[in-house]
């Protein structure tokens, strides 16, 4: 997957997990274009949403990240980089 594809996949996964923060169109577009950074803590995900995001990453990108590690990654941009490096 290319970087834009990974970003689009993450946005879709977060939408499925009903993460409200990314319903902000401007923020989503800025993240998709790589011009804005989003802190994972700011997404206000519950444990179920974290699990669902990790499942989506594994299913779509074949990269296994456990939910316990997600918050330690810090930002969605770093998550994109991690997925790219592990593919």
């Amino acid at each position: 997957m290319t970087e834009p594809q990974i970003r689009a996949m993450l946005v879709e996964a977060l939408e499925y997990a009903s993460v409200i923060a990314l319903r902000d169109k401007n923020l989503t577009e800025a993240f998709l274009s790589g011009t804005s950074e989003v802190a994972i803590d700011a997404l206000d995900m519950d444990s179920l949403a974290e699990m669902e995001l990790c499942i989506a990453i594994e299913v779509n990108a074949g990269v296994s990240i456990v939910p316990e590690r997600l918050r330690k990654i810090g930002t969605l941009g770093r998550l994109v980089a991690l997925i790219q490096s592990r593919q």
Partner: protein
Amino acid sequence: MIEYYRRAARRCSSVNQFNALHIGLANRITPLELVALRQAQGPWFVARTLLQQVLRLLSPVSRLWGAQPPPAELRDRWLRKLLGLYAQAAKPRPEPYRRRRLSRHLRLYSAGGARQDKTLLICFVGSSQRPFLPVPVFLQHLDAALSDVLMVGYPRGNGHRHGLPELGSTLEETIDKLRKLAGIDAYRRCVALGTSGGGTPALLTALRLGLPGVLSAGGGSPTDPRWFAALGEDVGELARRYAAASSNPPRVVLAFGVDAQKDVIAAQAFAECVPAVLRPIRDRRLESPHNLFQTLLRRRRLQGFLEATVLQLPPQAGDLAR
């Protein structure tokens, strides 16, 4: 169920695959199935899970970045957490609901018995595909002798806004077909419940079908643009039209966690569209978030809350006209 779990677990090779299996099960199984899964773990389940916790704390290896626990530990951890929530109901026996699939996105939970003596609770779930809580935990807080539950899911990513594909191409078509498919008229009473994204469709269903009561818990806004895109009008306007056309409008309860600011605003806005009772949920010690059933569960008030808001309505207002 136990054999299904064993077969499915054998196919899982990562933490995420186990989590997917466990989420799927927690969104479907009955209290009886949960207890059966617990019993299948043998008499040493509690001791084993405690030992696992201690070893995890002590072992530096398990704290290493990315160390994956063995499958048995993942299963035990999930079961222990689920049983902990289930135990909050403080009932000696599991509620004897049985699950029946009516269509791809509809499941009926019933313990049998005469429907004319029971209430049917039509439950619209939100994006987590569960009524805020794992299904066996939620069902354990109801009385299987008095109520059946119709769990209404939806295709992922679409929400309830376009209805269920197996029942129609719009939400209205879906609502109209629900009456017959669920045998609503055979019940003494039928009420609706919606959690999170299920709140708005529960409200529309109650208004359109003339149900006596509806509870929307942490429901969405009447001006949600996604609903506007699906309906071509504000969903609040549609609710207003349904309410105006109804000769006997339902008792509408809009509940929200007081710390979930978006839910507070959404409930207040919906209360301007249809006559409704606002029920703020607060906890003196902890935050009261979007998932207000979690707050009520912690305070052991969930069953009483469901009965007071939607399940036990005055008989004159609640009985279906037959």
